């Protein structure tokens, strides 16, 4: 397909703006040459981007069991509400008295998310999950510093964690102490006990873990960390499993980040914008990035906490994403929120039950919202790797599961159906996975060369990295 730079023609364009109605002014420090931007008519432009959109598989196009990403249905009403001019056209620096509805929306989102997580206060400023991790770790850092305990410079991270955890810890100035996990991804209590001490700032934990298992020792884990003087950080990536059932705050966690683009149904946008609010217990609230929405006698206001670590981004966060999440929360309400966790877990266990006679599971027992299969044996027997099965699914119009994660499982495929999929969809996907398993034994080559029906076949990633072409090169 042509790039936009190859569409259109010199001299073509659209008229968007009127002539200048005041004396025209120019700068003295002008650029040497005009930027070579596209020269397209409106029809060219619309056809180009429409063609691009047809080369994208969205959540609306089919099953999307991408483990750890919680690709649930994105309600359309939420899009309409976020596009209301009363939200969309607000200037972030207009007087608070003229933005009461917006601040109230932020306040309600904060209050309801705190209630769901068992936290006392929250910032909605972080723009994504990893941004929230960084923010939560800054709270932990500020807390220890404020007590004059500068020795606490280590963050403990299990080796089953997402890569963002250690990366965020380093950004927050901590040393990362990786501890091995048990085969089911749960925390090895002895390894944890050995790792913590007066140097421990905190533990970052994903629960349910990345193998989809709720750590049964969760209370013991937070107790061990607290006894050593550290704080407990809850990575909310997998919150969907426990939504409305149990709260991080009640498990002993001191702060948590949420992914509104996962658990709270806001669309992922092909890689954002998301939102990664950070909730915390009262003793950390004074360190939160500001300003924080608050309720006052006369209405709602935005207030900077007393010893704030400072802003982590401009203004108040991805406001329109928060509006969508609030719409979701208020649609479900107290009546239906517990159904999220219950059905997410039911669906995952059902798919696992249907598949477990064919595929080898990474661990036994019930799972939570997702489960991990290991294709190590299949790979040994047939040469067909997890990647090949994933690519085979593309031809069936199914987005592949997360591949090769967690790192502690070989040839891993991680499946998360979410609660918004029907039994029928899951049955069809499971049947396709079984068909591919059989195909691996009869015609492995067909899988090695998959996908066959997509706009392009497998792409040469090595070449892309070795000789980077990162922009269109103009002929002239």
């Amino acid at each position, binding site marked *: 397909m042509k790039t936009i730079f190859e569409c259109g023609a010199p001299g073509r*364009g*659209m008229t968007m703006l009127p002539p200048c*109605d*005041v*004396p025209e002014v120019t*700068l003295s420090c002008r*650029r040497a040459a005009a930027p070579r*931007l*596209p020269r397209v008519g*409106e029809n060219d*432009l619309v056809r180009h981007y429409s063609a691009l*959109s047809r*080369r994208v*598989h*969205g959540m609306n*196009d089919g099953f999307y069991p991408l483990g750890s990403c919680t*690709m*649930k249905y994105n309600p359309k009403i939420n899009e309409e509400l976020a596009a209301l001019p*009363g939200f969309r056209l607000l*200037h972030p*620096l*207009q*007087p608070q008295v003229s*933005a009461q509805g917006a601040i*109230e929306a932020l306040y309600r989102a904060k209050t309801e998310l705190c*209630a769901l997580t068992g936290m006392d206060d929250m910032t909605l400023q972080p723009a994504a999950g990893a*941004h929230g991790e960084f923010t939560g770790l800054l709270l932990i850092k500020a807390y220890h510093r404020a007590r004059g305990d500068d020795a606490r410079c280590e963050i403990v991270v299990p080796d089953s964690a997402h*890569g*963002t955890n*250690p*990366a*965020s810890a380093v950004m927050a100035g901590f040393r990362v102490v990786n501890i091995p996990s048990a085969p089911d991804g749960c925390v090895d209590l002895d390894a944890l006990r050995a790792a913590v001490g007066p140097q421990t700032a905190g533990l970052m934990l994903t629960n349910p873990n990345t193998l989809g298992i709720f750590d049964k020792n*969760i209370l013991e884990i937070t107790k061990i960390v607290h006894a050593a003087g550290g704080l407990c950080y809850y990575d909310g990536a997998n919150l969907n499993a426990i939504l409305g*059932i*149990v709260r991080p705050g*009640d498990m002993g966690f001191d702060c948590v980040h949420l992914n509104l683009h996962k658990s709270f149904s806001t669309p992922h*946008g092909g*890689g*954002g*914008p998301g939102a990664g609010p950070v909730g915390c217990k009262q003793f950390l609230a004074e360190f939160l990035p500001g300003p924080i929405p608050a309720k006052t006698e006369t209405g709602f206001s935005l207030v900077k906490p007393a010893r704030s670590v400072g*802003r*982590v981004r*401009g203004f108040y966060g991805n*406001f329109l994403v928060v509006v969508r999440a609030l719409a979701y929360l*208020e*649609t*479900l309400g*107290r009546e239906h929120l517990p159904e999220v966790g219950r059905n997410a*877990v*039911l*669906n995952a266990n*059902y798919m696992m*039950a249907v598949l477990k006679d064919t595929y080898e599971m990474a661990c036994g027992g*019930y799972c939570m919202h997702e489960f991990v299969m290991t294709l190590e044996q299949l790979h040994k027997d047939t040469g067909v790797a997890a990647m090949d099965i994933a690519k085979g699914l*593309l031809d069936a119009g199914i987005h592949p599961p997360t591949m090769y994660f967690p790192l502690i499982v070989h040839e891993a495929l991680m499946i998360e159906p979410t609660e*918004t999929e029907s*039994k029928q969809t899951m049955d069809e996907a499971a049947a396709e996975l079984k068909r591919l398993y059989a195909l691996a034994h009869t015609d492995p080559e067909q899988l090695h060369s998959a996908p066959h029906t997509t706009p392009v*076949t497998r*792409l040469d990633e090595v070449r892309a*990295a070795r000789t980077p072409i990162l922009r269109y090169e103009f002929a002239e």
Partner: protein
Amino acid sequence: MGSYVPTTPAERKQMLRAIGASSVDDLFENVPQGLKLGELAALPHEKSELELRQSFEALAGKNTIYRTCLRGAGSYRHFIPAVVASLSSREEFVTAYTPYQAEISQGILQAIFEYQTMMCELTGMDVSNAGVYDGAAAAAESITMCRDRRRTKAYVSASADPQVIEVMKTYCFGSDVELTVIPAPGGHTDPAALRAALGQDAACFYLQQPNFYGLIEDAEALGNIVHEAGAKFVMGVNPIALAVMKTPAECGADVAVGEAQPLGLDTAFGGPYLGFMTATHAMMRHLPGRIVGQTVDTEGRTGYVLTLSAREQHIRREKASSNICSNEQLCTLRAGIYLSAMGAEGLRQAATLSMSKAHYLAAQLEEKLGWKRLHEGEFFHEFASECPNPQKALDALAAQGILGGLPVEGGILWCATELVSKEELDRTVSILEEVERA
């Protein structure tokens, strides 16, 4: 139905049978019994779609949308062509995940590749990433790009947006980097103070152009001072101004970043926005976030993939150049569509109109009210003026549906864009005249 769960009670029974569990509660066996939640009393009751719509329309109705906006300071109300919302709201773009599966994500990957090209063209820089959270985060991330074992200190001009400086400070609190603010007396960065501050341990200096007060800095001269000290020169630039202004590349920048909100994004009470990051070839592997590269498929067809991922957290974990995972892809798409619709000529017009209207307003304020500018020197589409009683002036404008400039020390920081007509500017000045007379 209210939870978007499609399975029926009968199906759920069948599913439990297949699992071999007697109830859903059994599946939560690992959750300590005492911790399970009862009723979620702190949450509101469920709402039907109609009730939800009514409730949110009421909420949005409590906000004032000013007909005329003369406030900028980091968020700008520009004209947005209809195609931007129309195309970027296509469901495939909206509901897809990060394009890890390249074969079914070519549309997103190509859109990013084209966006990267447009940002390189605008800034004159060699490479661009796919964007970060916002302009302030981009400024903060640029420090990490520039520092190494020997060069550990970062510098920023006092003439930069205070929010950007604050975010840089927060990130520096995280990474234990010392951030020094270089004074800007009279609104412009003090070159002598910059020269004196930069030592052998200086990693980088961040300059905003046009700066927070709308003023044009002598970027080339400041860049030379930075390079003489062996540090990296980072520029934070307004992408609309780039249509006409000397590019960061022409000013010698090593890294050029900024807030892409003016490129087709709503002011939206502060977000979602988009931080753009561009750099020289030499700095390419230090860029954080996603980067798309062109390659070929097994049949030799051109295609696109996420590339240079050896920098990223999912491969490098604690050694990654940044922790960024999700960024602001849909905003990147919008910026690309906006730039395609405007073209070089449309963007030049937006820049020229914005700047000309701001200059007209400045001249009228001085002529009709005697309010002088607070700073000397060239400016783009923002300027600060005197104002004896800012609150009174702004209240009078607000009463007439005009959001006046932002109160700053000594007066008001005004902004004009192509959306404001001469008539609106004249009306603004006459309202202010009435306030003054009263």
